[in-house]
C-alpha cells in the first residue's frame, strides 16, 4: 500500500503530466462536440469517400491525384462496418488527438514535461488545425504520421529507426506533399547523428512503403501523379501570404518565434535543429507556390508544431536569463535542464 506522502510525492512529480491528461480529456470533449455537429463532409472529404468506395468495390478512382492512404483506411473500416460515412466522420479526427499526444510524449523525453505541455496544447488549440482536424481530411492524418516519424527518428532505440522509415512512408501515402517536410526532418537528423546505421535502417523501411504506395496506385489507375499540374508551379518570388497572415494563423504566440533565433542557446542544443529546419523548409515550400488558390492557412497544419516549438523555446531561453530566472522560479516555471 502507498502512504499518503508517497502518493502526494507522485502527484507532485507528475503534476504537469496530470494537467496534460486533464487538458486532453477536456479538449477531446470540446473537439468532438464540433465533430458531432458537422452535417456534411467537406468536398475533399467526399472525394476521399468516393475513392474509398472505388477501392472497396473495384471501380475506377474518381480523383487519382489525391493521396490514397485515407481512402484505404476508410475502405478498411467499411470492410468491417459496412459503408457509412458517419462512422468515418468520428474516426478520422482521432488522428488529430493522436498527433497531440505523441508530440507531448516526444518532447517530454528531451525538453521536459512543461515544454512538451506548452507545445502540445498550443498545437492542438491552433484554430486551423482544430477546424480541419474535425473533418475527413488528410491534414490531421499526415500531421499524425509526421509527428510519429519524428518520435521514432528522435529515439535512440535501433528498432525504432526501422519504424521511423515505415512512418515516413506512411506520411507520404497520407499526403504526398508532406514528404518534403518529413524528409527535411530525416536529413537534418542524419546530419546531426552522423550514424550510417540510422540512415540505412530508416531508408530501408521507408523505400518499400513509398514504392509500394506508388505501385498500388499505378496498378489501379494506370499512372501515378502526386498533384494536379496547376498545383505544382513554384517560383523564387516567395509570397508574403504566410508571414502577413501569421498572427491569424498561429495567434500571438508566433511573435515569440523570432525571439528564439536571437539566443545562442537555441543553436547549442542540436535537438532544436530538426524543428528549425522543419519550420523554415515548410514555410519556404508553401510560400514558393505561385498558385494563389493554394495560399491557405490549412497548409500550415503540417508544420504548426515546429512554430510552437520555437515559441516555447523562446520562453525557455528567456526564463534562463539571470535577471528574470528568479521570477520564473517563484511562480513554478522551471524548465527541465534546470531541474537536473
Amino acid at each position, binding site marked *: 500500500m502507498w502512504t499518503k506522502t508517497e502518493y502526494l510525492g507522485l502527484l507532485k512529480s507528475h503534476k504537469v503530466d496530470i494537467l496534460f491528461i486533464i487538458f486532453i480529456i477536456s479538449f477531446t470533449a470540446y473537439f468532438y462536440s464540433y465533430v458531432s455537429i458537422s452535417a456534411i463532409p*467537406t468536398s475533399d472529404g467526399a472525394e476521399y*469517400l468516393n475513392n474509398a468506395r472505388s477501392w472497396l468495390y473495384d471501380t475506377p478512382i474518381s480523383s487519382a491525384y489525391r493521396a490514397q492512404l485515407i481512402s484505404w483506411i476508410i475502405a478498411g473500416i467499411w470492410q468491417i462496418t459496412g459503408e457509412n460515412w458517419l462512422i468515418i466522420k468520428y474516426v478520422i479526427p482521432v488522428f488529430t488527438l493522436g498527433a497531440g499526444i505523441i508530440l507531448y510524449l516526444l518532447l517530454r523525453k528531451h525538453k521536459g514535461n512543461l515544454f512538451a505541455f506548452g507545445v502540445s496544447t498550443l498545437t492542438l488549440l491552433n484554430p486551423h488545425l482544430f*477546424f480541419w482536424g474535425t473533418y475527413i481530411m488528410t491534414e490531421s492524418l499526415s500531421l499524425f504520421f509526421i509527428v510519429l516519424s519524428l518520435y521514432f527518428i528522435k529515439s535512440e532505440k535501433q528498432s525504432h529507426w526501422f519504424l521511423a522509415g515505415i512512418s515516413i512512408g506512411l506520411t507520404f501515402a497520407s499526403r504526398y506533399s508532406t514528404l518534403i517536410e518529413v524528409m527535411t526532418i530525416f536529413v537534418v537528423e542524419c546530419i546531426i547523428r552522423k550514424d550510417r546505421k540510422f540512415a540505412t535502417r530508416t531508408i530501408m523501411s521507408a523505400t518499400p512503403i513509398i514504392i509500394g504506395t506508388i505501385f498500388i496506385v499505378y496498378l489501379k489507375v494506370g499512372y501515378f501523379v502526386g498533384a494536379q499540374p496547376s498545383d505544382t508551379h513554384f517560383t523564387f518570388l516567395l509570397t508574403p501570404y504566410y508571414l502577413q497572415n501569421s498572427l491569424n494563423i*498561429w*495567434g500571438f504566440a508566433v511573435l515569440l518565434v523570432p525571439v528564439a533565433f536571437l539566443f545562442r542557446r537555441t543553436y547549442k542544443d542540436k535537438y532544436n535543429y530538426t524543428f528549425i529546419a522543419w519550420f523554415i523548409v515548410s514555410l519556404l515550400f508553401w510560400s514558393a507556390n505561385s498558385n494563389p488558390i493554394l495560399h491557405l492557412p490549412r497548409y500550415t497544419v503540417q508544420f504548426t508544431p515546429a512554430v510552437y516549438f520555437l515559441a516555447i523555446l523562446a520562453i525557455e531561453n528567456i526564463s534562463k536569463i539571470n535577471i528574470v530566472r528568479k521570477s520564473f522560479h517563484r511562480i513554478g*516555471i522551471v524548465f527541465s535542464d534546470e531541474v537536473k
Partner: protein
Amino acid sequence: MIKKADIGSLVIGVILLILTISAVGAISEIENQQHAHKIFYNYKFIPAIVNISDLVPQGSSVVVSHTHSYLKYFIPHKIIKIPNTISSEKSLLYYMVKNNLTYLLVYDNRHYFPVNPLFSDTGLKNLRNDYKQIANYVIDDKTKFQLYQLNKNWRF
C-alpha cells in the same frame, strides 16, 4: 529604480498575456472558421440529395450542372456532367434527347462556384418550356438543388 524582480514579473506578464491571447483568440477563430463554412453544418443538405435520388428511377442517369464530389458520393445513379460545349438550353435539349437522358439536376452552390448562365434565374425560366421541375430544395441563401424532368412534348 526598477528592481530585477519587477523586470522578471513584467517579462512573465507579457509572455502569459501572449499565450492567453493566443489560446482565447484560437477559440474565437474556430468560431469564425465555423461561420465561414456554415454549409458544413447545414442539416438540409444530405436529405435533399437523398430525396432527389429517390425521385429518379433506378437505372436512369442524372445529368448534372456540376460534377461535385457530394453528388458523386450521395447520388447512387450514374452522374453525367454537362459537356463544356453546351451553352444554350437548345443545345442542352439536343444533347439530352440524343443520349436518351431524362433527368437534369441543377446544383447551384454560390459558396464555391459561379452560376452557369444557363442555370441563372433567367436561364432556368427558359428551361421550363421543355422541362418540368419535379423538386426544388433551397439549402441556404446560396445553395439550392433543382431536379428537372424532360417533358414528353419537347421541341427543337
